[in-house]
């Protein structure tokens, strides 16, 4: 590993730790590593609903630095029923929590991306866009994505989802919150009724020419469709 790389340790739900995590933490701190402390508070879980989980989310940020001596915090509020970070509730928690954190503490925080739909689907890209816009608008410093198809199917993730994440973030950087809220409301409505039937998408080798490592024409067409949807919502990126 490089000295700039991060070493991860995770908290447990909610606001718990165990000896294993403390051993990790001790080792990382003794080795002067960059320590990334990760936690994904669960909406509908032990904390309860929106407000409670948001409060827990703020507390997990504090916990990363106070208990674990973290260098930065990696967030990821997740919906208990769907297991993704792109639901309306998860986005609301993430956005509010980081705005609260940023108002008080000069710490670095990232957010994890877990979409319901898989690679090579418009839905996956729209979910990604919604979170990228939320994270950018609410002041998140680092975006860590995308774990498409909930991140549980081997080889169902590609660089194009991450590219879209970045382009949407750049496209909305500096937009007033009132404007991004309107965009998000319309955008989330486009996919939130489809969680049960979401397409799990394609494997990496079906999305890319693996010899040249370039996306297939099919995926590029899907990408273009997603770009058109975003332009219709008032989000534009120079290369779209």
């Amino acid at each position: 590993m490089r000295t700039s790389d991060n070493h991860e340790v995770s908290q447990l739900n909610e606001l718990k730790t165990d000896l294993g995590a403390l051993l990790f933490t001790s080792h990382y701190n003794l080795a002067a590593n960059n320590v990334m402390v990760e936690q994904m508070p669960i909406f509908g879980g032990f904390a309860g609903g929106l407000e409670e989980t948001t409060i827990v989310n703020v507390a997990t940020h504090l916990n990363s630095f106070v208990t674990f001596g973290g260098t930065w915090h990696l967030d990821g509020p997740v919906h208990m029923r769907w297991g993704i970070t792109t639901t309306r509730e998860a986005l609301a928690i993430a956005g509010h929590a980081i705005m609260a954190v940023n108002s008080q503490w000069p710490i670095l925080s990232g957010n994890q991306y877990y979409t319901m739909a898989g690679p090579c689907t418009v839905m996956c890209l729209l979910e990604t866009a919604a979170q990228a816009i939320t994270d950018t608008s609410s002041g998140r410093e680092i975006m860590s994505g995308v774990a498409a198809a909930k991140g549980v199917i081997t080889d169902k993730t590609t660089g194009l989802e991450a590219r879209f994440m970045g382009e949407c973030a750049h496209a909305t950087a500096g937009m007033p919150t009132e404007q991004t809220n309107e965009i998000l409301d319309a955008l989330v409505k486009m996919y939130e009724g489809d969680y049960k039937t979401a397409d799990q998408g394609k494997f990496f080798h079906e999305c890319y020419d693996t010899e040249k490592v370039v996306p297939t024409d099919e995926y590029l067409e899907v990408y273009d469709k997603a770009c058109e949807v975003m332009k219709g919502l008032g989000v534009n990126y120079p290369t779209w």
Partner: protein
Amino acid sequence: MGDAEFIQEAIDSLVTYDKDKAVDVANRAIAAGMAPDELMAKGFVVGIRQLGDKFDEGEVYLPELMLAAAAMEAAMAVCNAALPEGKSEVRGKVVIGTVEGDVHDIGKAIVCAYLRANGYEVWDLGRDVPVEDFVDKAEEVGADIIGASALLTATMRKQSEIVAELKDRGIRDKYKFVVGGAPCTQDYADSIGADAYAADASDGLKKIEELIA
């Protein structure tokens, strides 16, 4: 107060996850001569299922579900104590845990709450549970079901090791084995020889009911 009123009170006590109220209505109903199994079936079970529906719809969350499970257990204890010897309403015995190397357990916690709330006796082994412990506990308590949860693709192979352990001990057919967790699928469950795959807690309850029936 008649049976219908007791039944409605029992339903209400679970829907409002009020343990004290559940115990109180159980005691009063039984003292008034109501059949405890009828009170369970028409009152408490109906109430917990209504709350389970609310949980599935996102109207209540895990804390409420766990409170309701505690209320149900308390009510069941009162009702079972009033039943004739050997007529306990325990519907089945379940040993469940998160597999070794994995510490994700919220899904399992929900399954335990659902099962207890629906009359199953549950031994929750916790997290990071070695393969042998699942089988040892099942043997110790005479379980009907062994449930194993895994959230990581790296740990899900432990579920197949539980099947192997059961076969090695010559007791594979003694238990029904259910798997769950985010990386699991029906295909995966079939490939490792599990008896059922539970997509979520409601599905887990349904599958266990089918396996025990």
